[in-house]
């Protein structure tokens, strides 16, 4: 797969005037509204936001699973019309095929492309070696730990040499230690392959540690509230997470998200008919009450 590493960076993602609504029983429900984002070739960009803000919806539209109600999604100038192997995707639930061995999972994209068996076997072995998984090539996913499963998920998505990699809270189900290791592995692969990454997470530390830029979304209907460049130098070390620069970025993002989370929760509390409790819906009082 050395040809991939040698390529010029590709994968310019553009999302313009994007909105997406779906039909609810009380009329259309606006999930995402008036959103513009872009990812430059080879850039690592994260989207953070309160839960239910539509960040996954946005990612699924870039993947081609959802059609925008208005606006347009393009990759390298070509309009996204449906899922394709050009845009690799990693899911939170791992979504490995349980009936395929680790190697067969990694081979899947190459098989779909019509690559002969011996060739794709070799390619899959090389990739699994890079991820330190060669000893498990014949195992079925069920036998693997969560971190191993997600490594297979990432390798599988990268096997076909996509222009962009989309990740939907990929480490959300992992424990803290495994998560740190996975972040390192992802960074290494990203630097080696020079592809664009769009990463959805609710973990602020993770977003800052991994990204060149972070988009922060508003509560539903989601739109971009802020765009924060992360000027931390690379390669990044765990120790940087204690630096004043990192902590300042963290504080900024935290307060942005908290505002939106409170808005989102305020809506829920009103829905539950708890206004009678006379809770102040701004600032810290609510956090303390809860």
């Amino acid at each position, binding site marked *: 797969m050395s040809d991939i590493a040698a390529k010029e960076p590709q994968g310019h993602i553009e999302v313009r005037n994007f909105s997406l609504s779906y039909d609810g029983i009380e009329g259309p429900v606006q999930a995402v509204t008036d959103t513009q984002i872009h990812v430059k070739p080879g850039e690592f960009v994260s989207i953070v936001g309160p839960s239910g803000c539509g960040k996954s919806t946005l990612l699924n539209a870039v993947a081609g699973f959802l059609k925008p109600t208005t606006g347009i999604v393009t990759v390298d100038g070509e309009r996204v019309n449906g899922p394709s192997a050009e845009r*690799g*995707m990693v899911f939170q639930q791992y*979504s490995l*095929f349980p009936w395929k061995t680790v190697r067969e999972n990694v081979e899947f994209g190459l098989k779909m492309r019509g690559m002969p068996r011996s060739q794709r076997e070799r390619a899959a072995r090389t990739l699994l070696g890079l991820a330190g998984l060669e000893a498990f090539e014949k195992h*079925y996913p069920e036998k693997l730990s969560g971190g191993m499963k997600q490594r297979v998920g990432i390798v599988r998505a990268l096997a076909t040499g996509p222009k962009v990699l989309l990740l939907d809270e990929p480490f959300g189900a992992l424990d803290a230690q495994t998560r740190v290791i996975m972040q390192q592995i992802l960074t290494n692969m990203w630097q080696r392959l020079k592809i664009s990454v769009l990463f959805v997470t609710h973990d602020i530390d993770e977003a800052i540690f991994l990204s060149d830029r972070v988009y922060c979304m508003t509560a539903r209907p989601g739109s971009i509230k802020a765009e924060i460049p992360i000027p931390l130098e690379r390669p990044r070390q765990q120790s940087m997470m204690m630096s004043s620069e990192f902590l300042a970025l963290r504080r900024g993002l935290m307060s942005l998200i908290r505002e939106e989370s409170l808005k989102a929760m305020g809506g829920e509390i009103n829905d539950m008919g708890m206004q009678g409790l006379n809770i102040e819906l701004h600032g810290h009082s609510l956090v303390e009450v809860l």
Partner: protein
Amino acid sequence: MPPSATPPSFGTLALRWYRLNQGRLRATAIGIAALIAFLLVWHLLTTYRVVFFVRFTNVPSPLAVYASFTKAMHDPKFLMHILLSCRRIFIGFSLAAIIGVPLGLIMGRFKLVHEIIFPVAEVLRPIPAIAWVPMAIMLWPTNEQSIVFITFLGSFFPILVNTLHGMSLVDPVLVRAAQCLGARERSIFREVYFPASLPHIFTGLTVGMGVAWVSLIAAEMISGQYGIGYFTWEAYSLVQYADIALGMIAIGVLGLGSSLLIRGAGQLVMPWRAK
């Protein structure tokens, strides 16, 4: 292992093997003991011709059944009964699987096909195979065909319904994963929907095989001239009481054997579900 270490003696190996397999050995021992107890109770009830609500006056003893078993083993007619029943099961069940599984897969994938076929299937499904006997005799020119048809019907619906159920449970995230790895409709069907449904398909095949035997025996008793169901019914008419029990046991053993075959096939086809 360092070369100086002596290999474990036979005694230690045997002990280790025993410890590892203790649970299974226990289950086997209890199972054998229970079967012996069953035979013993049967023997006592028939030897003393117990009458206590149920009457064991005419029920053959295990020894009498064994005697007629040894006789039957040398009787080509008995073997032919068994062979014919197996053939009917094989044809009827295979047809049900060959039609039921693909139909279930297609119905699960294409809404229109589902909407057309499902209501009809739902109306026909609750009709027990035995109620089809008169209709089957009218429909098919030969007796043989109508018996196979009834066997087919018995296994068809469990296979169809379970395949459909399996299709409805396919994780949509796996379909998405396949799509963004470049899979098109046909590949998704072959690489995702089909293997994902296999466990339920095999549930359907196991249930279907059980119902196939139920239906076959009923059909043979009513309209057959050969077959193990006919043999059992004929034994009653001819007052060969030992042969009634022999026929019943033969049916039980054949049913058990065929469901073991399906289970084995399932393990071969789905290695990822081993243990």
